[in-house]
């Protein structure tokens, strides 16, 4: 399920079966053009990946709209903000919470997170239509879903 009109209706009826929340985490920064374009691209990749994951497991995973933060923020503060954000919005609906990100900075503070961090080493995908990109996404998706399924 995801944050879309039709899916939310289905979610309402099938709540008891959906026990896993996925939250993509994307940093934003416009200070440096090169970094900005890299981050924007990563934001796109993480959403393609998250959407593919949701497509495979839509009966059990709820894909949250992404959490956006400043790339230069203090991560100890950011962790508690994110925890509050998730708690305020999703309360106690989901026993399993996964955060998807390419940002390695979360790795250091992951023990403070309510949920499990899935940090994916960034791959450089330029052309999303290419066969190679699709295989890469499928590959990553498989590994992530394997990890998630160990929690079920």
């Amino acid at each position, binding site marked *: 399920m995801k944050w879309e009109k039709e899916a939310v209706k*289905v979610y309402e009826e*099938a709540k008891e*079966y*959906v026990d896993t929340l996925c939250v993509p985490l994307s940093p934003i920064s416009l200070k440096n053009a090169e970094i900005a374009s890299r981050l924007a691209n990563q934001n796109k990749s993480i959403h393609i990946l998250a959407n*593919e994951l949701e*497509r*495979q*497991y*839509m*009966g*059990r995973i709820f894909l949250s709209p992404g959490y956006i933060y400043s790339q230069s923020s203090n991560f100890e503060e950011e962790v508690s903000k994110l925890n509050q954000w998730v708690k305020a919005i999703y309360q106690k609906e989901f026993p399993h919470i996964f955060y998807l990100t390419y940002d390695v900075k979360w790795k250091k503070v992951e023990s403070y997170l309510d949920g499990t961090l899935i940090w994916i080493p960034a791959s450089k995908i330029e052309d999303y*239509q290419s066969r190679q990109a*699709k295989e890469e996404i499928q590959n990553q998706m498989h590994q992530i*879903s394997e990890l998630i*399924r160990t929690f*079920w």
Partner: protein
Amino acid sequence: MSEKKQQVSRRQFLNYTLTGVGGFMAAGMLAPMVRFAIDPVLQASAIGDMKAVVEVSEITTEPQRFDWTIEQVDAWYTSEVTKSAWVYKDDNDNIVALSPVCKHLGCQVNWAGDDAHPDQFYCPCHDGRYYKDGMNVPDTPPNAGLDIYEHEVRDGTLFLGNAMPREEV
């Protein structure tokens, strides 16, 4: 002499001209109507939504998963949507293309996804299972069989259309 020179009389000339101009005008009015009349015929021959998915020679008796993309237009946003199908040849050499979407809550099922049932489709979300022909195994969450794709073979290539729900039994 003068009679011989005038091969076209005034009456004849007017006749020809009027017929010519009249005919031209009639044709101008009728041509679009002809187009209207045969238009549906032209459309039907174009086989709308079928997409080439895989060479028939690649299809085996073991179900294999194939992906393809279609362009979907939602009002003002065009997006590429990935579709998948489990395709195999049954005992009578007929091609079967099943939708991977679980009839329970829409997860994607896998062939032999559960080690305990290597000859069934398995849904990892809530342990739904389907037999090879796509019918749901009783006492698992799904309450209907997997949808079946409309399919067509042209020049050795399998084309798939829309997934159709089974008739209720």
